[in-house]
C-alpha cells in the first residue's frame, strides 16, 4: 500500500463530489506539520492493519463461512 499523494486526494474530492478543500489543507494530510491530528498516511496504515487482523463477526444474516469464527 503506497502513501496517498496530493493529486490522488485532489481527484477524489473533485470526482466524488467532496468539498473542494484547498491545496494547503490537502497537503497537511500528505505531509502533516501541525502534530495535532494523526497523519493521513499513518492512519491508513493502521486501518490496513485493522482490516487484516480479522474483525468481529458481522451480523449473522450477512456472514459468510469465512466470517464466522467457527467457519
Amino acid at each position: 500500500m503506497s502513501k496517498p499523494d496530493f493529486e490522488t486526494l485532489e481527484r477524489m474530492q473533485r470526482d466524488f463530489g467532496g468539498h473542494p478543500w484547498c491545496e494547503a489543507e490537502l497537503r497537511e494530510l500528505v505531509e502533516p506539520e501541525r502534530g495535532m491530528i494523526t497523519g493521513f498516511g499513518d492512519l491508513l496504515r493502521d486501518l490496513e492493519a485493522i482490516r487484516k487482523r480479522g474483525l468481529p463477526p458481522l451480523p449473522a444474516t450477512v456472514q459468510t463461512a469465512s466470517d464466522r469464527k467457527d467457519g
Partner: protein
Amino acid sequence: MDDACFLGVAELRARFRSGALDPAAFVRFVAERAEAENTQSHAFTGFCPERAERVLLETPRAAPLYGIPYSCKDLIGTRDLPTTAASPAWADYQTGADAEIVAQLEALGAVLIGKNNLHEWALGTTGVNAHYGTAVNPYDPTRLAGGSSTGSAIAVARGYASFALGTDTGGSVRAPAALCGLVGFKPSHGRLSTEGVLPFSWSFDHIGLFARSVADTALIFSLLAPGPELRQDKPLKIGLPRAFYFEHCDPEILAAVEAAAGALQERGAELRDVAFTEPLELSRSASITVQMAEAASFHRPHLEARAARYSEEFRAGLALGQSLLATHYIDAKRMVEAYRRDAARILEEVDFLLTPACPIFAPPLGTEQVTETGIVEGAGNALTRYTSLFNMTGQPAIVLPLGLGRGGLPMGLQLVGRGGGDEALLAAALRMEDSGIVQRPPPPDPL
C-alpha cells in the same frame, strides 16, 4: 467572599441556608470576577448575567442546587447566548433553546454564569485557540491546560464555578482535569443527555462533569441522572492493565499512580494485573477514523458558507474525514465492537480498572510533539492516550487528582467502571477521596 469560591457544593448550600452567605451576592461575585479576569484566563466565550439574575429570582430557594454557579462548554446549546463551538465560523450561531442538561440544571436551581472556551469544535486536546485565546494552565501559565473542554476546567480550577459541563469524545474532560488538578467524570455513554449539544462525533460524544471533589461530582450526577444509592462496602477488586496503560508514562506520574494503588491495597483492595487481548496501539486510529468521518458528515452542509472561517487545523481534520473510505469507517466501527467486548470481559474479572490519567505533565505552550516518554507522538495524542478507549467502549471513567508533582504541576489517575456502573464507580472514588488517596491540589495562584 474569596474564601467561599473553593467551597464544596454542600458547604455552600449550608452557608446559604444559615444566612452566612447570600447566594445572589455570591453568584454575582464569582461571575464578575470571571468576566474581569477573562482577558487573562480566556476561560469563557460569553457571560449571561441577566439569565443568572432571573434564575436566582424565579427558582425556589429549596431547589437542591439553588445558588450554585456553574458554566458549560460552548458546544452546549443555550437559549440566550450564541453557541459558538469557539469557532469564528459559528460565532453567531443560536440554538434558540437550552440543551436538555442546561434545562435540567436550571430546574435544580444551578446558575449558569457563562459559556466556556474550547479547542475549536472539540477537534484537539491542547486547548489552543487563536480566535478566543488559549486558556493556559492555572498552575503554570507557560503551559497548556489540555482540552478540548479547556475553559470548563479553568472555570472550576480558578473558583469561578463550583462545577462545569464539558464534552468528552476521546478524553476532552478527563485530560484537562488531569492537567488542572480536578475531578473529571465521563459517565457511561448516554447517562447524561446530549440533546441540544452540538455534535463532534455522535458515536463517542459524552457529556462530562468537572468539579473540585468527588463529593461534588457524585452529588451533581445523582441529581442529573438518578440511580442506585452510592454504596461501596465490599473490598474493591481493581485491575491494572500494565501493558499500554503503564507504558511510556512519565516516571513521576507512574510512581504516584503506583503509590495510590498501593494505598488501595493497604485498605483492603485486591489488585490484579489484567491484559487486553485486542491491539490497543490501533485504538486511537480506530477512534480518529470514526470521529473525523462523523465530523465531516455533520459539517458538510455548512462548509460552503463557513469553511473559510474555520481554523487551518480544523479544515485539515475535516479534509481527512472526507478522504476516508466508507469501508474504513465501518472497519473502525467493527474494531470498536472488538474493544467493547474486550473491555467488558476484563471488567467481569475485576470491578474497576486503574490507570494513569495522562502520561505527561502539562506540556509547554507551543508543544506539538512529545518525546519525553520514549516515543514520539503529537501532543494531542499523548494527552488522550489513556482516555480515548473508554469513549469507544462506553464505560464510565473518572480522573482523580494526585496532588502536585514536578514544577508544581498536577498529576492524576483514571478509574474505569463497568458499563452502567456509574454509581459504583463514584462510590469507589468517594472512598478514595475520604481515605486521602485522592489529593486535591491547593487552589492556583490568583491572576
